[in-house]
């Protein structure tokens, strides 16, 4: 890679993880395509998984005060996420992931439309409790099949209308957990060598720089502005899924 290309990749990582620092979402969906265009998808997924784990852990630490209020849905969600990941890996090997991408993209766009039609409406606690395990399962399936779980996790948690710190912790915890499973699987399958680990550590530098600034920006956002910021990231992810599925 040329110096200019490296700078472009680092800038993409910085922008992606700035969005993540503000909303809890973003990061890999923005950084992976840019890096993949130079080095290939497998390389990009393996490298970006390292700064993603760092960013998610950092966000969890920063927002840990909200953990006790949300663990009632987070624990079943993460438990079923493991089972879902196994099914997701099987699906990855057996069905066309473009079908999943399109289905998911449509589902997310429907959610965003539903939000704008009923901005005040949130899922009641009883329903949310019932949906926690299926949402975790769905996130796991998606993570196993496509490597991303943000569409399901982000959509489910957004529908609960949590305060910012609760939302960020609620998305960062499953991302961190599923991300570690991804890193472990890749490492077991020989997906990491010294060069990739080094590249992953270098990719952590922009994350370390932008995450604290982004968290500060996020804390200053109003509740409404925060909800919209999350919807923007979800919208971008939905369009990207539809694009990759239909292209």
């Amino acid at each position: 890679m040329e110096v200019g290309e490296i700078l472009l990749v680092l800038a993409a990582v910085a922008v992606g993880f700035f969005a993540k620092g503000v909303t809890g979402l973003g990061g890999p969906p923005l950084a992976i395509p840019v890096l993949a265009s130079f080095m290939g998808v497998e390389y990009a997924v393996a490298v970006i998984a390292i700064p993603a784990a760092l960013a998610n852990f950092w966000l969890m630490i920063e927002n840990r005060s909200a953990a006790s209020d949300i663990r009632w849905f987070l624990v079943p969600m993460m438990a079923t996420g493991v089972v879902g990941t196994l099914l997701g890996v099987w699906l990855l090997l057996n069905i066309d992931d473009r079908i999943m991408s399109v289905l998911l993209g449509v589902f997310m766009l429907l959610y965003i439309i539903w939000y704008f039609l009923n901005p005040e409406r949130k899922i009641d606690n009883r329903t949310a409790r019932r949906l926690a395990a299926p949402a975790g399962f769905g996130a796991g399936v998606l993570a196993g099949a496509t490597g991303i779980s943000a569409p399901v996790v982000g959509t489910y948690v957004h529908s609960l209308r949590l305060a910012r710190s609760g939302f960020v912790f609620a998305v960062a915890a499953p991302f961190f957990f599923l991300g570690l499973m991804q890193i472990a699987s890749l490492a077991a399958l020989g997906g990491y060598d010294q060069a990739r680990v080094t590249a992953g550590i270098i990719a952590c530098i922009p994350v370390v720089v932008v995450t604290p600034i982004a968290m500060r920006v996020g804390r200053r956002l109003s509740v409404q502005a925060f909800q919209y910021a999350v919807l923007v990231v979800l919208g971008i992810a939905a369009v990207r899924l539809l694009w990759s599925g239909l292209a």
Partner: protein
Amino acid sequence: MIEDRAAVGPDGSAPEPEHKEVQRPPGPARYRWYVLAAVVVALLALPLFRPMISSYNYVLTIGALVLMWVAMSSSWNILGGFAGYISLGHSVFMGVGGYVAGVLLYYHGVSPFLTAPLGGLVAVAIGFLAGFITLRTRGPAFIISTIALLFMFLLMTDNFEYLGGAAGLPLPPLELSQEWLRVPFYYAMLLIAMGAVWTAYRVAHSKFGMGLRAIAEDEVKAEVAGVPTRLYKISAFAMSAFWVGVAGAIYGYSIAFIRPTVFFTIAISAQMVLMAIIGGKGTVAGPVVGAVLIYAINELSLVFFGATEFNIVIQGTMLVAVLLFFPLGVVGTLRKMNRLPAFLNWD
């Protein structure tokens, strides 16, 4: 904990001082010292039970490493926990201690058991200087400046031939039979850990510690209230470097070589931060609990699952679980719930 509250009489004047007999602390607080004494005696006696321990050297090595992390995490907590300044460059001081003692051994044959305190003092001097520069910043800028410090030292040692460059320097091993080789290192680390925890305890119960906590709460208000914030922060930075430097000196000797990548890595600093946060940042006992817990998780995971990639998931799961159920760290959360055992209540 005894709270110092300003009592005011009904007419607004200060009440007459009462001459009461000084009372001993109630039961649990006294037990605390008995339990701590028992723990220290057990740790001191551990190497004497050689016939009863099958993997003697392994146990002592693990014990020494846990004690090293206890010392480093407790020291980091003085700046990161009490003052609220997150440093990701503290492994620099470990490296400084390691290199000072290592160079004196390699070129002059002086044992690191003698020169380790000197390593700590040099770390303090560098901590003072680094704090003088980096503590002009705060928040994200401070974190980044400490990372820059780390990379600066990595580059310097990598390119300094006298220090062995990137290959480092091999150190002559301690001249002891294999069966007793780990004992001196274990006792040295035990002393260092006790010193570090004692320092943290003294800081926590001093005017200086109160000033640091005020800085962590609100630096501007602390300044207005008369806390010399800059002096306190720099002193905290320097003080937090000492035991890390001493631990680095002994650690370098125990592995028989010093090399930039052994010391100057962000992973070591991150581990100190992690241990303090998981145990309870800003508490005296927190880093101790965090160090023991994280090291135990790592080690148990290795024992049960071997050195496989599965370890990453196990350790991650444990971290998520701790954050979910102990969001203020183990000690902080238990205290908030009024369930902290008296022997862990050192604040």
